[in-house]
């Protein structure tokens, strides 16, 4: 995937390799979420291109990208709160499984059959995310940690090629963070490419294959966790430069 150009982000160009765990870090306002919005089609870049598996997908709307195998979670969980846990996970499965609406309008039996056909994939995603046994709970009543898990389950259900996780550990306690950490590793080990935005450096350094550091809309460093954490430009961006006239 290549990308370059947009005023909030300029001349950032990078490639995410298949099945890797790629993190984007940077101070607040450095353009991480904008980057996600560009990749997922929420914003169309003014300049530059987005490629998915070598195919130009710039300007495609988010739902089409989802059909092509891209999933995404949000900083604050955005669940379908009036639905049950299972129904939440069913939505992306139903949305990509076309041409069945007419039958469902005509007969209840056809609707049940469709649901049964898609149910295993949904249950599998809930199992992976550790939400087994909660499938009939109302999604809006889940504790915060489970809401985060459900968001990940929802985007994992379609067996995506790549998922983009926007601060999955934000607002969680240490135990819950460890759980999410393991869940991300697990999903990655099942062959899903993961792109991660996260402020928890311990987590990022622990699970990423490669990291990109953004600052003021440009990429200031690339590399493995070890390379990035020793890069002077990164240290400068995070800690600031010591001003000369201090002395």
């Amino acid at each position: 995937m290549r990308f370059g150009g947009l005023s909030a982000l300029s001349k950032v160009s990078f490639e995410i390799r298949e099945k890797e765990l790629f993190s984007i870090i940077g101070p607040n306002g450095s353009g991480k979420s904008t980057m996600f919005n560009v990749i997922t089609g929420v914003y169309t870049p003014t300049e530059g291109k987005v490629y998915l598996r070598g195919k130009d997908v710039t300007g495609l709307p988010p739902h089409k990208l989802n059909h092509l195998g891209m999933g995404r979670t949000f900083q604050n969980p955005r669940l379908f709160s009036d639905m049950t846990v299972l129904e939440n996970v069913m939505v992306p499965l139903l949305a990509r499984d076309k041409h069945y609406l007419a039958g469902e309008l005509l007969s209840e039996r056809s609707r049940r059959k469709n649901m049964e056909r898609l149910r295993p994939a949904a249950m599998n995603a809930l199992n992976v995310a550790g939400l087994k046994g909660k499938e009939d709970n109302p999604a809006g009543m889940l504790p915060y940690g489970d809401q985060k898990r459900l968001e990940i389950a929802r985007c994992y259900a379609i067996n995506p090629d790549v998922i983009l996780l926007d601060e999955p550990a934000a607002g969680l306690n240490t135990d819950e963070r460890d759980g999410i950490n393991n869940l991300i590793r697990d999903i990655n080990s099942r062959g899903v490419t993961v792109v991660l935005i996260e402020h928890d450096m311990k987590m990022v350094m622990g699970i990423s294959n490669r990291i990109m550091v953004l600052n003021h809309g440009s990429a200031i460093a690339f590399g493995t966790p070890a390379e990035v954490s020793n890069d002077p430009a990164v240290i400068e961006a995070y800690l600031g430069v010591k001003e000369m006239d201090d002395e």
Partner: protein
Amino acid sequence: MKNYIPKIVLAAVLLGALSIPSFTPKYILHLVIYIMIISIAVMGLGILGVSGQISNAQGAFYGIGAYTSALFSVRMGVSFWASLLIVILFACVVGFVVGLPTIKVSGLYLIMTTLGVNEIIYLIMMNNITLTNGPQGVSRIPGPSLFGFTFKSMPSYFYLCYAFLLFFALLSIRIYRSRLGNYFIAVKNSEIASNMNGVNVVKTKLTAFMISAVYGGVAGALYSGYIGYIHPDNFKTDVSVLFLTMSIFGGQRSVVGMLCATTILTIATEYFRFIGEYRLIAYGLVLILGMIYMPEGIGGKFVQLKNLVKAGKQHDKG
């Protein structure tokens, strides 16, 4: 055996309703027919509401249906059934156009936009005299007939409306249960999350608008065929507000709830006729109190009751 009880009750009510024309006085029968007709328009708003949208233009779609059907049958001699097809097509087109701004606006702004739409359509009905007869209205609308039988008597029109109401109630229930219903709730809960999970949000919202317009249009066609004379004032914004009140008071997810609310508010309107325009204050009061004490409408109370019974049964078992 117990599971059959609701079904038996439902069948009894549906069959029992068939006998209404045989024992009710004319005036009550008229009210019942009117309630059945506007219930269809109200159920259309329910579909829109489930998808997280709100419209103050259902009265205008009701009017479009009434005028389209009336003008085609009076001026061109088109049969009611053919005009109904035109109404459905036309409602789809207008619903689509009116729905377009909703891609960008929601909430209060959508209420204002649709209010404006209602006013525009009202002004067209009132002032485009060559097209609509303007303030003279359209009279001597022939009404529907089938295989040589004309639905002229009130009992016959009752059965016609009953069939339409049953069809559209069933359609609503199927829509709510189908994947389209799932998309509607998803879009209502979070547009961006729906979009990121493969739901075409624009298409879903427009679909809801078009379906709701068709409900309004068909109700309007039934109304004009029944009453025989229509006037632009029958389709002003106060009608839209009334429909919206009915759908919200009923609970937009519950077809039965909306039917109850339509019945209650129509009867209340008749009883409070003596206070004239002050009735509108009563609607406002009903809407406010309803939103405070039953945010899910009458339908929401049914669900609560059902859950209570279920919990009670589980308690008995435990």
